[in-house]
């Protein structure tokens, strides 16, 4: 039932899943910070736009967003899409979706920093950018790590949604094997791999959390 070729195919899929996972974090973590800035901006149109964006990203299914990002350019602009775009669409959809969640996490963290920290920084002559990167952001990281961990663990599992665009990641491949074998064993094995993946992610995040725990407020 479980043979080497099944494991090999699933592991091949797992590599694609990991690629989606890493690329999504790479783009969505900084993008989320920019969205958070927009969401907290004093410029009303930008703030309103970011609110709508976050609301839509959180309020509609990620699977639907994947489909819209992939087929949208064709239906809206009549653009002909290369086969590479399938993977790019997945990364775009995941990144803009997770950026919305991360933006709200950043915002919560930034708003939790006492006003006195900004005042002390100002009196010491730090500029706005210096204040943010030297004084505020390191403290924000510490506050938000537990919430970010939750999102990152969810992302590991959400990569399986890319099956709707037939990306050869682990879940897509497990489904194909299961259909061919008329057995759910491949899906169960994939489940074990997802679990191990997340155990590793949780371990890394716990270490990160410990590294930021050298001080308390």
């Amino acid at each position, binding site marked *: 039932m479980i043979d080497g070729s099944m494991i090999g195919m699933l592991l091949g899929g797992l590599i694609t899943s990991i690629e989606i996972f890493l690329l999504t974090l790479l783009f969505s973590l900084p993008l989320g910070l920019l969205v958070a800035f927009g969401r907290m901006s004093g410029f009303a149109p930008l703030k309103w736009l970011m609110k709508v964006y976050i609301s839509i990203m959180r309020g509609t299914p990620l699977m639907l967003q994947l489909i819209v990002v992939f087929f949208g350019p064709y239906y809206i602009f009549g653009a002909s899409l290369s086969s590479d775009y399938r993977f790019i669409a997945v990364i775009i959809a995941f990144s803009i979706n997770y950026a919305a969640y991360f933006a709200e996490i950043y915002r919560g963290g930034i708003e939790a920093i*006492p006003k*006195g*920290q900004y*005042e*002390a920084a*100002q*009196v*010491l*002559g*730090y500029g706005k950018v*210096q204040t943010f990167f*030297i*004084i505020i952001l*390191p*403290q924000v990281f*510490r506050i938000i790590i537990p919430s970010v961990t939750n999102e990152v663990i969810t992302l590991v599992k959400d990569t399986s949604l890319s099956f709707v665009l037939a990306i050869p990641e682990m879940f897509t491949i497990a489904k194909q094997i299961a259909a061919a074998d008329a057995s759910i064993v491949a899906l169960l094995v994939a489940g074990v791999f997802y679990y191990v993946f997340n155990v590793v992610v949780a371990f890394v995040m716990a270490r990160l959390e410990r590294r930021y725990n*050298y*001080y*308390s*407020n």
Partner: protein
Amino acid sequence: MSLLKVKNLKKSFDEEEVLKDISLEVEKGEVLCIIGPSGSGKSTLLRCITDLEQEDGGVIDFDGTFGLVFQDFNLFPHHSVMKNITNAPIKVQKRDKTEVFQSARALLKKMGLEDKEDAYPHELSGGQQQRVSIARALAMNPDILFFDEPTSALDPELTSEILVVIRDLAAENMTMVIVTHEMTFARNVADKIIFMDDGHIVEEGTPDEVFSSDNSRMREFLGKFYD
């Protein structure tokens, strides 16, 4: 020669006028204590002078460097004591690292904290934290040091720790403006005292002049401390 000149300063929050036409001068080497009841505008005055609030009218004439010591310290919790003190001189004033570290160690020694340079603020008592924040302000080599109720968050024992430090600075002719509720301390350390009430300067002069004033509001306020 006056180092700081404030003329006809006005400040309101919404409809409430907090500072009504405040004028004062601080000479080089002078210690000015500002006293008065809560809500009289003392802290707002200090916050306008230090640019933490924007005044609505009047002129603040001062071009030098200043330091501000807050009531609740506002140390950076993620930086060690040493980094709290040295980071702004290095990153903002672009001074030489070795020189900054040397002067920071000298300041810590002066504050009796020479063994705390690697500690984090949460590992220190309130009095120690406030001494670090004084060292942080002094490390910028300010022309004037402002204190906004520096002992209000501390118990009496820790308060005296801080008052001793400020007295030592006064003995070194550091120019200081101190908003405080410590009347005995103000009387001992100040060259000049300003008594504020309801956004006005009610009384101004040497400690002896102010503390023997006939002004009824001043007497009423002092009575609460000496009865």
